[in-house]
């Protein structure tokens, strides 16, 4: 236990004296690991292997594609066209952003990839249309988490394998709650737009709309290309991210003619920088998690909850709190792998449907992605906007309430998750 205290205290102190979060995570883990029986050189090996995952490589791919689109004229044309169609509605662009995240979530199994793909285009668009930057960032970070709820979903696949549930059924169970959470976010966006009375743009003529849409046609084709490419089985999401890169380069160079070599060079450098920032955090968070797992901390807490829960509601509240705390530091897949096997017997005793519980767990994992100190969606958004994580967190707070509301509704109404499952 003392080593765990060293871990947590040194982590917070390091963060507060402005050591980068990635280094704080890594350094505090090194301190803690040196207090237990651990051969230290293997730490760097763990960092290396946690970065070497082709599934994670969709993140740099979509970041790269997103920056090319925003600097190469594609985003500009796309935003102009979108504004001409819905700019005169209050909250219109926010709704577009949420829909875009939902559509993207339907092809990608990862939340940070979703936030990266949509954020690089839509945040600048929203800011230009008069939304506050903080709100725009929070919206993308929150709506991006739908990536793991709306199928396909990497965490749900892992859940299915560990719990012996049909992955197809789990995917089906995620559909309604995914749409439901998306709808809640949309309602909150409409209310927010009403309250803040965001400027609306003058309504544009049909002629003007068609002209702008024609110009933006190349941008509209991209999502079709990616969606189609993945759904028809031409490529995996990771590969799709790089095909999007190729497509964006071609369109920027030959159609919009805005891509010059120095600009491209800057884009590459920025993509590497943001990816490196995110992956150093992933690598360090993995050592942090490795320490906790070795010391059996999450396992012990889960067992304790299991042994002290007397009724189903106490259990559900305790388990949601546990997921919240673990979600602060660990990634979704680790949390499932560590806690689910221990929870399965109790879920049977309390007669909680495993598909229903999967959705509860996944929404908790979504919250984890926007909960500091380690929230990948926060970092992705902070990376593409160059805003501090603190500002992103402030932007996310209202959406936190929305997602928790959704979580409570999903817990209370199992029909939401089980309705479509036959």
């Amino acid at each position, binding site marked *: 236990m003392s080593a765990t205290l060293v871990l947590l205290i040194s982590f917070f102190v390091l963060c507060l004296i402005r050591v980068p979060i990635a280094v704080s995570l890594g350094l505090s883990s090194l301190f803690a690991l040196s*207090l*237990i*029986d*651990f*051969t230290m*050189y*293997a730490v760097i*090996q*763990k960092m290396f*292997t*946690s970065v*070497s*995952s*082709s*599934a994670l490589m969709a993140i740099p791919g979509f970041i790269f594609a997103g920056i090319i689109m925003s600097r190469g004229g594609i985003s500009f044309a796309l935003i102009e066209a979108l504004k001409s169609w819905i700019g005169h509605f209050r909250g219109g662009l926010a709704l577009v952003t949420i829909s875009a995240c939902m559509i993207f979530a339907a092809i990608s*199994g990862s939340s940070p990839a979703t936030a990266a793909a949509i954020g690089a285009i839509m945040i600048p668009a929203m800011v230009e249309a008069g939304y506050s930057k903080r709100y725009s960032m929070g919206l993308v970070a929150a709506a991006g988490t739908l990536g793991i709820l709306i199928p*396909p979903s*990497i965490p749900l*696949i*892992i859940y*299915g*394998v*560990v719990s*012996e549930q*049909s*992955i*197809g059924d789990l995917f089906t169970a995620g559909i309604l709650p995914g749409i439901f959470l998306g709808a809640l976010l949309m309602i909150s966006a409409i209310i927010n737009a009403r309250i803040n009375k965001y400027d609306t743009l003058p309504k544009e003529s049909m002629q003007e709309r068609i002209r702008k849409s024609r110009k933006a046609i190349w941008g509209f084709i991209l999502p079709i290309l990616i969606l189609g490419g*993945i*759904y*028809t*089985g*031409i*490529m*995996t*999401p*990771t590969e799709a991210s790089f095909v999007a890169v190729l497509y964006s380069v071609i369109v920027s160079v030959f159609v919009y003619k805005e891509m010059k070599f120095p600009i491209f060079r800057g884009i590459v450098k920025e993509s590497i920088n943001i990816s490196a920032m995110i992956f150093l955090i992933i690598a360090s968070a993995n050592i942090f998690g*490795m320490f906790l*797992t*070795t010391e*059996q901390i999450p396992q012990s807490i889960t067992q304790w909850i299991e042994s002290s829960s007397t009724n189903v509601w106490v259990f559900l509240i305790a388990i949601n709190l546990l997921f919240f705390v673990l979600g602060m530091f660990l990634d979704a*897949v*680790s949390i499932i*792998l*560590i806690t689910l*096997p221990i929870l399965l017997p109790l879920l049977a005793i309390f007669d909680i449907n495993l598909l229903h519980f999967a959705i509860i767990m996944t929404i908790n994992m979504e919250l984890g992605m926007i909960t500091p100190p380690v929230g990948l969606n926060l970092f992705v958004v902070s990376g593409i906007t160059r805003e501090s994580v603190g500002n992103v967190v402030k932007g996310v707070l209202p959406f936190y309430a929305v997602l928790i509301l959704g979580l409570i509704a999903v817990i209370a109404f199992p029909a939401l998750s089980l309705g479509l499952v036959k």
Partner: protein
Amino acid sequence: NKKSSEPSATSSNEVQEITIKLAHEVSENTSQHVGSLAVKDYIEKESGGKIKVQIYPNGQLFGDKDVYQQLVANNVQITQIDMAKLVGEDTRFNIPSMPFLFNGDDEAVKFWDSEKGLEILKSLDKDGIYGIAMWPNGQKHLTNDKRPIKTPEDLKGLKFRTQGGQVLEQVFSTLGAGSTSIPFTELYTALQQGTVDGQTNTFVNIESKKFDEIQKYLTVSGETRVDLGLFVNKKFMDSLNEPTRKIVEEGLKAGTDSARQAAKTMNVESRQKLEERGNIEIYELTTQEIDAFREAWAPIYDEFSSIIGEEYIEAAKQTNE
């Protein structure tokens, strides 16, 4: 802070108080986990609780990518590794991937228990790892969602996923099929969306990973195998005194017996489950059909027998007699 896995010298006839970490990357409904539990039960019971065995399943601590170096570093003391992942350490670990080399589990076990088999398992001694025994997962069978596979020609033009490695790549390319390596987290979606047409795996893996939900045809081909090596850190083992070492060794034996038994029954059970669920059309190859495949794959033996070592291939073949 006493290093638990490097016990200090105690009186040499007393069982040492230690904690052993055992990590594996598969879920708890597998023969590997059954075997791991048997190791734990035996050792904890026989040592009167002095030795603790902590199991980390599901790759929650270390998985296929890092467990090797973590075992070398003694951050985990016991693990099982898929031999297909070890071909980069020693090409002889390609043996389970050689088509139709063994008739079944018993023959494979017989080979790996023989002098030649143990020689290969012990080849990792140089890195500080003891190879103890082979734990079978079983024969692999082809699944795909394009057409029932009955002849080698049926594979032509299909795209398969493999765990990687040159022999497995050749198994497909020889028959005009393509192969690509896709990580497990992306495999279910890749099969569902058709990025690859099929894969090959044991009944247990096909059933527990739900591939019958997204694949139409299963051919009971048993063309290649998944076999694991049970490995233990050498420094740890050598640090044990006589009575402690004996308990650990016996525990590993108990685990091996139980894992081997479980692999057999679980593959039978999984096949039954697949049949009951009825999502996937199961076709069992006849002896003649298997012979056609055997002939089609003969070139693989021409190419890889010398790389692996003729004497090992011969010794493996002899187990079938």
